[in-house]
């Protein structure tokens, strides 16, 4: 293997909201190579159960490699029980990455649904101090599931929140916040990451307004490296693998 299957030592695995954990890992090779939008493919257990690795966006890569994950099923539940000092087997960094906004961009709007916020911490580390107006539109179920956003705010990002139950920010879906997106086809660039219905709502807003941007897609993955063709997603130019051709796609590919 060309050094993509690597061991990582867990430095910390801490609960950061009612259902999310931050996993801090010692993994120099991935740390050095990682670009915003890329992911790692994590083997959560030795043995054959669960059988697939689990993909997680790289959420930060400063001193250490950081992942943010929601506990939603067996794999993430097992991961949440890992302790500092434990070792994990990772493939990474995998996939393509977010491109930098095109020349002339002033307004960068990141749209996150739930744990889809993960890659935007790293993206904002790249976009800070570059004279962009950074905005995050962030949708979550409820107040207790909102992740701490200090580093995003430190990077100069303005944050608007929507919760399904209205316990923080405005009540409703993140799409209620799209009015904050400056409709300027030359100066606005969008990044979106979240569940499929949210991505659909972003497309439904961006296309008629001719806005440019990129989305990070999700599909169930087996190999994570473009071999099995299991994670294919339909684009305008045919099926593409989310793991190798993506996870980042131009808005107009859908």
């Amino acid at each position, binding site marked *: 293997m060309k050094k993509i299957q690597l061991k990582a030592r867990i430095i910390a695995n801490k609960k950061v909201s009612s259902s999310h954990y931050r996993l801090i890992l010692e993994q120099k090779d991935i740390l050095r190579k990682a670009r915003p939008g890329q992911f790692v493919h994590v083997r959560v257990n030795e043995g054959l159960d669960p059988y697939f690795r689990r993909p997680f966006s790289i959420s930060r890569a400063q001193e250490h490699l950081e992942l943010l994950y929601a506990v939603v099923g067996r794999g993430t539940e097992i991961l949440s029980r890992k302790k500092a000092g434990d070792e994990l087997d990772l493939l990474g960094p995998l996939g393509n990455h977010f491109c930098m906004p095109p020349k002339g961009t002033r307004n960068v709007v990141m749209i996150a649904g739930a744990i889809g916020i993960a890659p935007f911490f790293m993206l904002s580390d790249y976009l800070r101090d570059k004279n962009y107006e950074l905005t995050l539109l962030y949708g979550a179920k409820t107040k207790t599931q909102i992740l701490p956003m200090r580093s995003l705010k430190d990077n100069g990002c303005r944050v608007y929140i929507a919760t399904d139950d209205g316990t923080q920010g405005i009540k409703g879906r993140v799409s209620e916040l799209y009015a904050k997106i400056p409709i300027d086809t030359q100066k606005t660039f969008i990044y979106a990451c979240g569940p499929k219905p949210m991505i659909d709502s972003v497309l439904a807003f961006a296309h008629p307004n001719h806005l440019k941007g990129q989305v990070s897609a999700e599909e169930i993955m087996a190999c994570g490296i473009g071999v099995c*063709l299991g994670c*294919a997603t339909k684009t305008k130019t045919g099926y593409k693998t989310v793991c190798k051709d993506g996870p980042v796609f131009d808005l107009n590919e859908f």
Partner: protein
Amino acid sequence: MDLSVKIGKVRFENPVTVASGTFGYLEKYHDAKMIKKLGAITPKTITLKAQEGNPAPRIVETPAGMVNAIGIQNLGVDAFIEQQLPVYAKLKVPVIVSVSGKSAEEFILLASKLNHAGVAAIELNLSCPNLGKKTLIAQDAKATEAVVKAVKKMARVPIIAKLTPNVTDISLMAKAAENAGADAVSMINTFSAMVIDVNTLRPKLGNFTGGLSGPAITPVALHMVYQTAQRVKIPVIAMGGISNADDALQFLIAGATMVAVGTASFLNPQAPYEVLEGIQRYMKEKEIKDIQAVIDSLIKE
């Protein structure tokens, strides 16, 4: 230590290959030095024309395995010859090219395009609809025989018939392939399978059904390989969840001539190399000089 095996007139340095559809995109993630060590590689099945594959989701995880319905997404044979074969040639690893067609004529056309130096052998993926009938070619001994016979007539490289386990007696299908002149059989393809989402009341695969692979199928595959190896004289290339040297050795001991690592590579991309190294270690420890002494060495009384 001699690990070499033969399929037809072609000699492979060692018995370890990979299962079609589970190993590829070598240029980016695999070390040329490691790939070269494998006995052969078997890329994903190709068809005459490009195929776009099945709707998502195409895969679902199951206990110790997975169900897939990829739909033989591929670029088509001409693009394969132009873009992929040169990559393998550069890597200097023997290639077993897997092909699939809808009729004997299509198989012949595919084989005629691949009938040249640079292809070590051709594997006929017979798990494809048998035109005009409800069964797959590999579920019909006569159809299997007809396709293999037709291809063998014009082939200049060894012809391998890949069989499906979704039959009453796979060894009968292997026998039909042997009678038609096949140089080897490759077995097993995946088991027909499905998984349902109880919340949506829908199947979890876009294609409704798919094929089960991985360690979950290993003991069944092993029994099928054992039965078949008893029945035919041509070599058996074995696969079915092989994940480590112990698995691979069981198939060799049961009578397989080559072993292929498939689904296991998704969890552990090093699996094919680890299988090879493990077989070498086993032979060294047991002071076995020739792999032939391992093949079909099961004590039966």
